[in-house]
């Protein structure tokens, strides 16, 4: 199974350990993984700001980098959702369609394609799960609190057998953290307030770590935590899943 590793541009630059963890994790499960060196960005920052018409170049480049793979896997729900919903190519729509149908966020790739039931590992801490809204409500990685429907959670399922890990139950299980792309600067006050409140919920439940599938949310929360000089740390779920 040929897997193309799609690493969000900010993860590449700021959080290489998440790329490494994702790569190693997929290799452990027998995937033939490679990272196309000419990948840049999926174009979401432009599209969500209202400039979707400027993403054609990004789309063309994305298709050129990823059309040869059976699956495209990304440690970000948000970037995955953007590609799944918006990737098109005038020159090669067949390839773009193939990518849209075969792009997966890391945890859903593990549970849905590789059929991983649980993962062995060791992470002896109290952990709060902060799912990104795009991962949760966009890709439906777990059930949404608004709906009257049976609960499930793909990331929680994977964390179940990690030794020592104690997953806490938050008061507001799926409240947005306030990152929101350019929202984090254009609506700075509300964005930060949402982040502070999200952190408060974790503090009330005495967590050591906040984890999740999207480093953009976690980067925003980390920025606030560090400013508060808090002991709580953030960690991407790929790093926990790759802990042994």
């Amino acid at each position, binding site marked *: 199974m040929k897997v193309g590793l799609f690493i969000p541009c900010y993860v590449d630059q700021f959080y290489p350990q998440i790329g490494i963890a994702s790569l190693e994790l997929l290799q452990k499960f027998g995937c033939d993984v490679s990272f196309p060196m000419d990948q840049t960005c999926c174009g979401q920052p432009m599209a969500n700001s209202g400039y979707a018409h400027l993403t054609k170049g990004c789309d063309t480049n994305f298709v050129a980098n990823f059309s040869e793979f059976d699956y495209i896997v990304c440690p970000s729900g948000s970037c995955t959702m953007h590609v799944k919903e918006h990737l098109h190519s005038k020159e090669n729509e067949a390839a773009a369609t193939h990518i849209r149908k075969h792009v997966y966020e890391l945890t859903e790739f593990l549970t849905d394609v590789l059929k991983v039931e649980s993962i062995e590992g060791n992470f002896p801490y109290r952990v709060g799960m902060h799912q990104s809204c795009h991962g949760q409500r966009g890709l439906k990685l777990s059930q949404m609190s608004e709906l*009257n429907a049976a609960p499930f959670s793909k990331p929680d399922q994977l964390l179940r057998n990690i030794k020592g890990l104690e997953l806490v139950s938050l008061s507001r299980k799926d409240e947005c953290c306030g990152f929101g792309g350019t929202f984090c600067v254009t609506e700075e006050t509300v964005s930060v307030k949402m982040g502070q409140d999200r952190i408060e919920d974790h503090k009330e439940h005495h967590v050591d770590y906040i984890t999740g599938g999207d480093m953009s949310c976690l980067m925003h929360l980390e920025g606030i935590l560090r400013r508060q000089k808090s002991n709580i740390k953030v960690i991407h779920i790929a790093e926990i899943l790759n802990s042994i």
Partner: protein
Amino acid sequence: MKNTIDHSTAAATFNKDVERVNWHDETLWFVRSKRDKSAHAIPEWEALRETASNIKNNVLSNMHTYLQEFEANALKNGIVVHWAADGDEHNKIVHSIIAKHGVTQMVKSKSMLTEECHLNEYLADNGVEVIDSDLGEFIVQLRKEPPSHIVLPAIHLKKEDVSDTFNEHLGTEKGNNDPQYLTEAARKELRDTFLTRKVALTGVNFAVAETGEFVVCTNEGNADMGAHLADVHIACMGFEKLIPQRKHLGVFLRLLARSATGQPITTFSSHFKKPREGQEMHIVIVDNGRSTQLGREDFRNSLKCIRCGACMNTCPVYRRSGGHSYHNAVAGPIGSILAPNLDMKKNADLPFASTLCGSCTNVCPVKIDIHDQLYKWRQVLVKEGYTPSSKTMAMKGMSAVLANPSVFKIAGKAGRFVMKNLPFMVNNNLNAWYKQREMPAPPEESFREWYAKKAKESKDKK
């Protein structure tokens, strides 16, 4: 016309009082939780939402036919039917009815449509005094403020604020914050209003095409008090309030109050079919941009809205910015997709006052794809030129680099393009990220540098 303060500036002001923001957030979250509890107690909840959505889609696709059917039946019932193309015409019609009866005072129950049309200001300018009889509306009216929420008009106020307001206007004891005492004072004041007004205006929650009747939902019974005691009842409705048949009410009445406050049903669901002996009954059917919205394929289904306010209660941005920061009669997520239709320039900021988290879409009882429409409005507003040119320049530069891997690599090496140009780094001169957040620390090597090194090592081994 007052200058509009954009959402982020108004929200920043609202956030200066942290305790008040926390209280606002928690109060509305409590309402959202009540909604969840009530919605989750009904096994067929999701099927009800789907049914309501389908009924409303049918209405939107057959608006012309249902409007004519409704008008014919209402006329048969002895109701006078008026048509208003816009807010101004609506206000003139209402005023002409009042003037015909030679009165200068009117009592009004809650109607977001009249807020949208700025009826109170219009009537005041024409010498007619309007008293809002919904308690929340009554409070904000005394304070000369617009409602901050479509269902809970005074939700931005604490009981202490209400006490001060009543002390000033109704002469209640200073510092007496007892809700029962304050409500009693409003009750006494309003009772006199109800007894003396000759003309009463109400909104409309549902208008039934099949029967020509309409239904008004309140918790305080104030619509009934006004309408039953007055000689003239004027009901104002946006044309999207139609439902085809009476039996469909069962679907909507079950959804409305549960979505709004978590109640199984509003205390009063009043059906008005025909004027009583000696009474005059008028219906004013208003367009005011609705047919334009109906013609916008991507946005037409925003007209399915039944004004329950669930999207506001769940919206993490609304809860922390307050209704007034949306500078529109309808605030929150639904307001942000309705307002640009009325005035793109004035409301260009609203579709950006969201993280696109999608919770609004999930609570919507008629399944409006609110967050998708916010995304689509952003595209329209940019194309129509309503975003700052500095942002457009930045986006153009960014997309050019990201489209070209070789330029990206050079830019990356020369100073880490991504670090400088990510959304949170744009506008670095203002440094909005750093104000209350630390920057991520740059690592020694990027993932791609690590990957290239690894690839080279394994190649060398071979």
